[in-house]
């Protein structure tokens, strides 16, 4: 009992420290942004005039509408892509299931803004496909003109979210329900409409809300496609060309945050209370059947079309990185490795910066994630749930808003020894990445900790170990798989984050990969080096995702073994 109380107070101090960190670097900047949005720029009084200006100006009305439209259409297009794929894997004995699984992972390793440029060259109004179409058939398809470009790039990147959620939802439907419906005479469309669809809905809504919020907040893709009349790019443009005192940037930030919180809430609500589907025994998933020949051909045809679109950014980027001059032609004029040579000569700074920032962010994330998970799940400290809520709330804060918040809050604060404003010191970029990736790492750590039976910790304490020793020698090693997976995912996604970094990078020597790619893509001597750098970014993310996948798989197997041991231990007591 003595040791328990002692450990409890240590945990309390850690909880306080965590709260301070989250407050200073998450709550305070966002509060500042909201405060400035409601502040009159000249007098400093509370006012709604900035919002009135926003909703009264045609440009911002249009930006608001465009952002909303693009987000909704992206969800729609992503659903259209994901639906047939989910249908074929869950309804049929489909041998190409591995192919679909790959389809569900390949888009996520290419950051959308990197692929956007390459897609313009392939699918743009004067891109490869349209040049051929025009030559052979005399018409062109506006794949990438205007907002269509943003919608296409975003849906191709984010449809895996919907695919995964939809597949999981369909797989969780109890076969017994389908059979009883069929027994009562429901078939085909009616069965789908009355049984399958309502049961799959929550999973779908959760995924769709997540895609909506990510597209709504995305800044890189519209900027690189030269679409400026959307909310997120407007916030960036206002702050970067007019200054951090421009009220419009803050108004837009408030709107972005409000919508993000709403979408996040919808997503969480949809998945709450739907556990009943997973608990029941009796065979998961709808009954599968073999495909008839015509179904097989249509299935493969659809999959191949989707595959071509999904791979277009990858193909385009590879061609661009190896191409010499690619101008108004189906393929580049020639091929060379000169761009990669340029990159290795001059871009090593970007890569070292990225490794540094992403490394710091990922390490901080798993340390914070483990600490918060332990406090929330294993201690009784008052208000611990709020640590979880606030950390997860970081999901609702768009990167550009976090960047603006940091600039505003910290540009006056001088770091003591370095003698620079905190907002210009490179460490702020690492902190921003930490905050942005914390929700994912936290979920990993919470899931890992939930799998560990409390019995093991109690056994350790019964043998005389203190709480701290138990955590160090028992809990953390058992969580290792989840921690490692969280680290790798944090690292891989932080390495290509653009929204917050583009606001916070104040000098070129501090720029990480994503900012470097953005900078290189602005060269009138050709985008080859930018594309080469993009390929390196894709490799990093791809490698990270694969490693994380392997670690999780191995962790699952180990946990199953440990769970059996814990069960036996309980039974023997």
């Amino acid at each position: 009992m003595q040791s328990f109380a002692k450990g409890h107070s240590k945990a309390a101090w850690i909880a306080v420290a965590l709260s301070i960190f989250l407050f200073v670097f998450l709550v305070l900047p966002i509060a500042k942004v909201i405060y400035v949005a409601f502040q009159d720029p000249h007098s400093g009084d509370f006012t709604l005039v900035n919002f009135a200006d926003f909703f009264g100006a045609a440009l911002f009305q249009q930006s608001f509408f465009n952002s909303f439209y693009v987000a909704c259409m992206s969800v729609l297009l992503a659903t259209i892509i994901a639906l047939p794929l989910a249908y074929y894997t869950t309804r049929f004995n489909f041998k190409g299931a591995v192919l679909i699984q790959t389809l569900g992972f390949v888009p996520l390793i290419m950051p959308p803004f990197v692929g956007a440029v390459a897609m313009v060259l392939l699918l743009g109004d004067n891109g490869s496909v349209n040049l051929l179409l025009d030559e052979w058939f005399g018409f062109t398809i506006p794949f990438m003109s205007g907002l269509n470009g943003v919608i296409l790039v975003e849906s191709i990147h984010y449809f895996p979210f919907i695919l995964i959620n939809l597949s999981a939802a369909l797989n969780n439907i109890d076969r017994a329900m389908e059979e009883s419906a069929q027994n009562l005479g429901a078939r085909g469309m009616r069965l789908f409409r009355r049984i399958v669809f309502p049961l799959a809905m929550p999973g779908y809504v959760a995924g769709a809300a997540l895609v909506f919020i990510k597209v709504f907040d995305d800044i890189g893709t519209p900027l690189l496609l030269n679409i400026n009349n959307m909310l997120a790019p407007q916030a960036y443009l206002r702050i970067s060309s007019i200054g951090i005192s421009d009220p419009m940037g803050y108004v837009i930030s408030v709107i972005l945050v409000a919508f993000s919180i709403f979408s996040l809430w919808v997503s969480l609500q949809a998945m709450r209370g739907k556990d009943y589907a997973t608990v029941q025994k009796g065979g998961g998933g709808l009954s599968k059947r073999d495909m008839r020949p015509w179904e097989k051909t249509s299935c493969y045809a659809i999959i191949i079309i989707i595959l071509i679109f999904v791979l277009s950014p990858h193909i385009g980027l590879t061609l661009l990185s190896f191409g010499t001059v690619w101008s108004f032609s189906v393929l580049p004029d020639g091929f060379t490795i000169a761009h990669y040579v340029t990159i290795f000569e001059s871009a090593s700074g970007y890569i070292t910066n990225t490794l540094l920032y992403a490394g710091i962010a990922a390490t901080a994330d798993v340390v914070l994630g483990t600490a918060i998970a332990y406090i929330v799940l294993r201690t009784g400290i008052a208000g611990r749930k709020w640590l979880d809520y606030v950390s997860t709330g970081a999901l609702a804060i768009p990167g550009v808003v976090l960047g603006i918040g940091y600039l505003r809050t910290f540009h006056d604060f001088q770091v003591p020894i370095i003698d620079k404003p905190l907002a210009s010191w490179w460490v702020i970029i690492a902190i921003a990445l930490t905050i942005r990736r914390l929700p994912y790492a936290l979920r990993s750590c919470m899931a890992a900790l939930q799998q560990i039976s409390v019995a093991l910790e109690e056994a350790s304490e019964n043998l005389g170990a203190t709480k701290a020793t138990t955590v160090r020698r028992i809990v953390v090693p058992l969580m290792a798989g989840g921690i490692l997976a969280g680290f790798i995912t944090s690292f891989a996604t932080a390495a290509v984050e653009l929204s917050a970094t583009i606001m916070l990078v104040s000098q070129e020597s501090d720029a990480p990969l994503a900012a470097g790619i953005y900078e290189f893509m602005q060269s009138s001597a050709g985008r080859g080096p930018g594309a080469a750098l993009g390929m390196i970014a894709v490799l990093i993310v791809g490698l990270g995702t694969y490693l994380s996948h392997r670690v999780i798989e191995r962790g699952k197997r180990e946990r199953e073994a440990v769970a059996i041991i814990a069960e036996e231990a309980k039974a023997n007591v």
Partner: protein
Amino acid sequence: MTKFIPAAFAAAFLSVLSMLSISPAAAASGKLVIVTSYPPDTTETVKKAFEKVHPGVQVEMLKKKTTAGIKYLQETQSNNTTDMFWASAPDAFEVLKDDGLLAKYSVKQKGIPEKVGAFPINDPDGYYKGFAASGYGIMWNTRYTKAKKLPDAKEWADLKNAVYHGHVGMSAPSRSGTTHLTVETVLQGMGWDAGWAEWKSIAGNFKTVTERSFGVPDGVNSGQFGVGIVIDFFGLSSQASGFPVEFVYPTVTTLVPANFAIVKNAPNTDAASAFIEYLLSPAGQEVLLDPKIRRLPVNPATYANAPKDFPNPFKDKSIGAAVKFDLALSKNRYNVVNSLFDVMVTYRLEDLVAATSAIQMAEAKAGSNPAAAKLIAEAKALVAKMPITEAEAADEGFNAIFKTKRKKATTKVKGRQAEIEKEWDAMVVANYTKAKQLAEKAMGM
């Protein structure tokens, strides 16, 4: 004692020798922070060449668009960490000079003439210096124009032609110092109303207004659109990099120096001076001829090493002779011109393009009909209508509204920028819509 004297002599002799061999340039060391709007092609190439000659100096480039760079210097002036400002637009430097953010410097390098074209190369007050000259013009993608059968454009007026509809790209003055200069050049060359009318007619043929000035040469290079309105070195460097593009100076253009200046209270003035001296030296000027940069040097002697057909403003006096650029005028109405262009063109591009398209179709179909011609002329006048006059635009009090900080307490700020832009926007949208209706009516005749 005897041992001491030769040693003393030796020491004195050596120190005199070493003093003679120390040139001011070799003494420069440390970090040199430059706020610049130039792309990596220019900054990296110059930085590498400079660091070879001055190995003790470590150059750091802070990349900011011209307007963002001005804001940055204004915001950090109480705690300045920047040594130099390096950008194209002289009016940006005028804005900084007025705010007292620049330091005076006298160049030691010889061989730089007083003027290029009709424009003085250096600031007469001694704050900023020109290192290269730039003109503005038209670049096009030869494969694109061949495929779409577009004629080569030689003058701004050519771009108003209906054949270019949807094929032209440009950036906005608020986003690009060089674009701002281009817009100002035509405004000064043709007059306020005629100049804006010209810009709006050309803009009616736009496919896009790019986010940064680099978006224009990139769009032309990759074939997204066929014709771009750019600063000369974009066209020339794209050509030198192997893209199938051509560049031409129209008659109404001006040669304006690109500049650099030392910031007031700079942490490392030695390194900054070394940088200026280097870039103005024959070796530095020759770096400007690099295929990735391709800017017009201000040292006439450098042109001897230039490639064939490289424009030489010191030999060819016709480039930029038509317009005598008035810097003071440009500076006075800097922010207003930015806002006007954005409200009338950038953010209403769809409406403007639709109205222009209707006018062009009406002209083609029913231009000879006198009643239709009258309607078309009315429509054109509506599109060209300006919400404010030239005098109003140059008014100091009016301009102050478009700044977020009031520089002088005496400058009265009536109303807010957002309010005024909203008024203009309403007027502009109504005019474009009405113009379109009139043109459609004319088409029916």
